[in-house]
């Protein structure tokens, strides 16, 4: 299914302030009045200095951080799901089938081998275990992860190896919406190029991407448009 030019993400007047109750109720305003649309086949690059709230914005689009003001809606099965009012089940279904999130770090689970970590999103969609593992193997091979590592839990892998497991896990399902937080941060040049190609291909196949890319080369290759996230002043 491709929906070229159809809006996939719709953000309106989004604001986020953290209130730190353990620090005497300090208020940290991070985002205010953020509005944009992202269409299928586009990659919106979140630009701005570190600490400006780019990751906060990305996490809010995933429903990981809660909405405070404004709205985020994501197209799911042909209609928009409003994250602020959706039930927990609806948000989980959105994550299972529509929205993929690639973080900088892999959350490792004791005892679970790399192959199963990668296969899990397919299993969650009901793919049978043998097929899911076969596809996971193909992805790990594509990510240049040596086969002797596939059956080991990634806890002892290097940062770059863990990140490649993470990316394989996030791209094994063709999510219509991909949120990417520094996906290439710990990769060497060859693997970075590989991941760039995969992101470009996902975009060309009609996925809507929103990304934070520190590396200018990656930004150039994958991004189609910028959105500038500016640091906010402390509230008086």
């Amino acid at each position: 299914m491709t929906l070229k030019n159809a809006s996939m993400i719709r953000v309106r007047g989004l604001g986020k302030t953290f209130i730190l109750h353990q620090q005497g109720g300090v208020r940290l305003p991070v985002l205010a009045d953020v509005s944009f649309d992202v269409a299928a086949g586009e990659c919106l690059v979140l630009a701005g200095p570190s600490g400006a709230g780019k990751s906060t914005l990305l996490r809010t689009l995933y429903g990981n951080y809660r909405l405070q003001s404004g709205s985020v809606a994501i197209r799911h099965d042909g209609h928009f799901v409003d994250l602020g009012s959706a039930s927990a089940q609806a948000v989980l279904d959105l994550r299972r089938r529509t929205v993929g999130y690639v973080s900088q770090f892999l959350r490792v689970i004791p005892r679970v081998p790399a192959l199963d970590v990668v296969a899990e999103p397919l299993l969650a969609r009901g793919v049978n275990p043998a097929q899911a593992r076969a596809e996971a193997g193909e992805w790990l091979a594509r990510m240049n992860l040596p086969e002797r590592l596939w059956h080991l839990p990634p806890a002892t892998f290097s940062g770059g190896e863990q990140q490649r497991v993470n990316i394989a896990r996030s791209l094994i399902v063709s999510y219509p919406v991909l949120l990417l937080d520094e996906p290439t941060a710990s990769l060497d040049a060859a693997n970075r190029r590989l991941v760039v190609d995969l992101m470009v291909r996902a975009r060309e196949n009609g996925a809507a991407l929103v990304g934070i890319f520190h590396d200018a080369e990656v930004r150039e290759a994958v991004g189609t448009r910028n959105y500038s996230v500016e640091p906010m002043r402390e509230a008086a």
Partner: protein
Amino acid sequence: MSEPLLLATGLTKRFGRRAAVAEVGFELHPGEVLGLVGESGSGKTTLLRLLSGQMAPDEGRVEFRSRDGEMLDLYALSEPRRRLLMRTDWGYVHQQARDGLRMAVSAGANVGERLMAQGARHYGDIRAAALDWLGRVEIAVDRIDDAPASFSGGMQQRLQIARNLVTRPRLVFMDEPTAALDVSVQARLLDLLRQLVGELGLAVVLVTHDLAVARLLAHRLVVMKDGRAVEEGLTDQVLDDPQHPYTQLLVSSVLQA
């Protein structure tokens, strides 16, 4: 959207003048793992007892959807009917395995007994099911005739899980299932629970004070403090973007290993 399997409304339980649980309500859907988190004394174990038919609330209701789709008011059911439900459709995993096992009978009998309570009579089938379940919880099959008293703590806990799951319950209550185990043994049990819950599509109410356990197993969390539910949401929302002062304190108090 699926219909709720378990529905709690306005649950309140007082011990003397103190409310151990006050006005707690939530829905649990099929296949969903709900974590009840909070420190000891927050009321989470009392809440679990109210939900699982072990203690009637002073106010409020617990409703459970029968296999026929009917919502049953748990404490309006006759005692035999409630017991039947607990034996067949529900499981309960205790923190201490010895509270959920019969220590003097064999491992195989511990698993088979629940099936017999459900009406199974064929010895060969019961033994085959017991063997299958011992394998699934990673207990060597040549231990089937040994009493659980001779098992390690981790094995006992895995046996308790097999005993609960053999009847294919739709809902399982778990009270700190890993808390009594050494850390090295915890990981194995957690991985096993995670797999089984996913494979069987179980609905689970999980009480834990361990936020890492909650993160690994639960889809949704309810944070308890002084008997009240002070915050709820998707597990990652509650742990990564806690709103309530108490949840912020809990999350910020965890040591990073």
